[in-house]
């Protein structure tokens, strides 16, 4: 799975370059996220602008990443397409994650929580 990552200050921005996060890629996604969190990244923006479909394994992998960060960090999501948003609503994940419309807003939101 191709994941683009870059850092803005202490914020890690992760952008999957795939259209799907599903059973075929969810494990790899989860492992990479876990690796980055383990390396000390505590404030992460997940940019889903390229993704138009996430199945329940993919949603589970995102929840896992949030759990891994724990209480001393934050994971916000941005640039979510409507098809993906409807799946967030179905699972009620939209109430757990901050979901912002752009990467800038997401970074701004994390900055305000300093």
């Amino acid at each position, binding site marked *: 799975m191709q994941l683009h990552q870059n850092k803005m200050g202490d914020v890690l921005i992760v952008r999957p370059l795939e259209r*799907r996060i*599903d*059973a*075929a890629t969810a494990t790899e996604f989860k492992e990479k996220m876990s690796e980055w969190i383990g390396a000390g990244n505590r404030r992460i923006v997940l940019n889903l602008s390229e993704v138009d*479909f996430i*199945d*329940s*394994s993919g*949603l*589970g992998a995102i*929840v896992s990443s949030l759990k891994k960060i724990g209480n001393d960090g934050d994971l916000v999501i941005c640039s979510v397409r409507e098809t993906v948003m*409807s799946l967030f*609503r*179905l*699972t*009620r*994940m939209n*109430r*757990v*994650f*901050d979901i912002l419309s752009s990467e800038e807003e997401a970074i701004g939101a994390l900055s305000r929580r300093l």
Partner: protein
Amino acid sequence: MTRNYLDNSRAALKESMDYHLRCSLCRETPSKDYRDHFLATAFSLRDRMTEKILQTERRYQEAGAKRVYYLSMEFLIGRLLGDSLYNLGLFDLCRDVLSEAGIDIDEVREQENDAGLGNGGLGRLAACFLDSMATLDIPGFGYGIHYEYGLFKQEVDNGYQKEKPDNWLAEFSPWEIKRPDEKCIVPIYGRIEHFQDRAGEYNPMWLDWKVIMGIPFDIPVVGYGGKTVNWLRLYGAGSSTDFDIQIFNEGDYFRAVEQKVSSETITKMLYPRDTLKSGKELRLVQEYFLVACSLRDIVRRYLKDHGDFDRFSDSVAIQMNDTHPSLAVAELMRLLVDEYALPWDSAWEITQRTMAYTNHTILSEALEKWPVSLLERVIPRHLQIIYEINSRFLATVASLHPSDIDLIRRMSLIEEGENKQVRMAHLAMVGSHSINGVSALHTEILMKNNFSDFHALWPERFVSITNGITQRRWLLKSNPQLAGLISEKIGDSWITDLAQLKRLESCADDPDFQDRFRGIKRANKEALSRIISRTAWVSVNPDSLFDVHVKRIHEYKRQLLKIMHIIYEYLQIVRGEKTPTVAKTYIFGGKAAPGYWVAKQIIKLIHNVGQVINSDKRLQDIMKVVFLPDYRVSLAEKIIPAADLSEQISMAGTEASGTGNMKFMLNGALTVGTLDGANVEMLQESGEDNIFIFGLKAGEIEEMQRANTYRPTEYYRSYPEIRIVVDTFRDNVFCPSEPGLFQWIYSRFMHEEDTYFHLPDLLEYIRIQEKIEEEYRDTASWTKKAIFNVTRSGKFSSDRAISEYAGLIWKVEAVK
């Protein structure tokens, strides 16, 4: 084709039929193939109906109309060609166009498979209701399941029922419009992850679900006159490319195909009604699939015109046809609370104001309950919602009756015990603003017995709406000669206003009218005799009294009581204790659920009794007993117009309404029946001289059950009439080559087992049959009574029932 090819003109109809023969079916014209003509005709009608769906929708839009959505696991629609032709006003024209091509329209109609997407009355009621809603210009739509296999086809081998798959779609249905563009996703299985939301509040997340795709198939429903065309949307289950592509990508082709097949299995088959007790997971999945697809679609339609849910219950009414779709309460709550983030209280108010529940049975074993453990696995989020609904509901009950723990236990949505179960009827009642029974007696029993606690809490929610049937199918189409005679006398306003039949009463004594009425009955009996000869291999006399008992085979419907009477009569004749004065043909039909041993034995008994009687030279043509295999809508349309006597002899207090009883009445059969279901109202309407009522009343049976005073052996010992009949089961009179075959019936009585009170009603039943025989001999008087049955059947139109639903429950208006 020409610009006006959808006109109701002969030229346009011919043009579109020819077009479809050539362009849709790739056939040279003229074709002589009936199947080709059936398809070409159906396509031509479908073109007209789809155009009218669009026109109707525009009318509804302009009126901002409130819409009714009728959720039902069954729609027993049968054949559609004849109905559509009549309702579009194209029957005569189409007959002529086909005739010019040398094609007989009746042969063309025989090419259509029955869409047997139902078990019996409940599914047929749903189909009649759709017809009435369209005829009354009510924006009413059906939601159901696109079963690949309808109710099994019944074959009979040596008296034993054999079930064969009913692949009604084998040659595809020309009526359906597949709408993959409007498919929806249905999440299922998975687990709840207990989390907190951003505000620190509890936030359950439904994760690890699988997905089934719901693919809609629309069938147009045209009202009489052809102005309004609504639709029935049936959902078929499919796998999703999105959701399966991962497995393909993993290179596991076989697993991917298995997944696809597994998803499609969900709508493979309609469950026979009496097999539902065993709590089959697939049935639960079907019920959930129906409500999940329907509600997602209903909400989607509503949101096209509205930005929020403030006007949802003013714009939408949802009727749950029996308990099967009651998960709709939990699903609507889930959609509103989870997916659209409404506060619980607002969502609950909307749900209650939108949903309404029709109960169709008082048999406690048919009131569905699902194990909590199963719901937890299949739809974990819905179970959470059901628990929350229950907790709030029981708090209300407790606040009103703080010390009545037993009441709280009885009313709870959850039945406690080792295997906790969800009481689906309670869920439906708590989540609905209206709860209705389907006849006056049935509603009374619901309020007094089954649901008395709920009635005490919410008396205003209970309402009785007696079932009905559509006269367009059950008279206009199935008995065209009688329909023609009626229209000749009083005009055709009865087609949309059945109460008009009353105006025919002045003809009841007219000898000429009586002659013609009898002549039509005789012709219908001749036609049925030919079917009997062809399918049951028995030659019957059309001048004999046709005594008909056709319906699902079930102990409570008491086919056994009818057979016991026939045995009694047979023994009386052969023993020389009775001189028959009326030749009789006893006609049975009906399917037994595949796993229902007793019902299948009853079919075998009917055959064996028939075999003995039909081959007994002493009886000649005096008495015949026949069983017509594969009872279905199209066969009912042939049987009912030919009946002289309609058997409606269920144990009082068990049949919720019955609709077969109404169809017979409308077609001029006299009813012999117990005071059960809608028979009670048929007595009120027809007058006691025109119906034969016998047997214990519901209250009397209830009392005997409560006091445990009924002893079958006492009846056996006390009444020789009963004894001689019961002894035939012990003595192998009807199974000489298979001794012991019917011993179980004898043994049951001897062991004081007679759940459906056959013996206490048998004597009175024998007496009333003697009275019927006597009355039948007076031809003029019988005919007059038969005519009165027709003229007084106005109440039993589904148009009346739908008008009551519209006014009392749905609060919708016609959009003319």
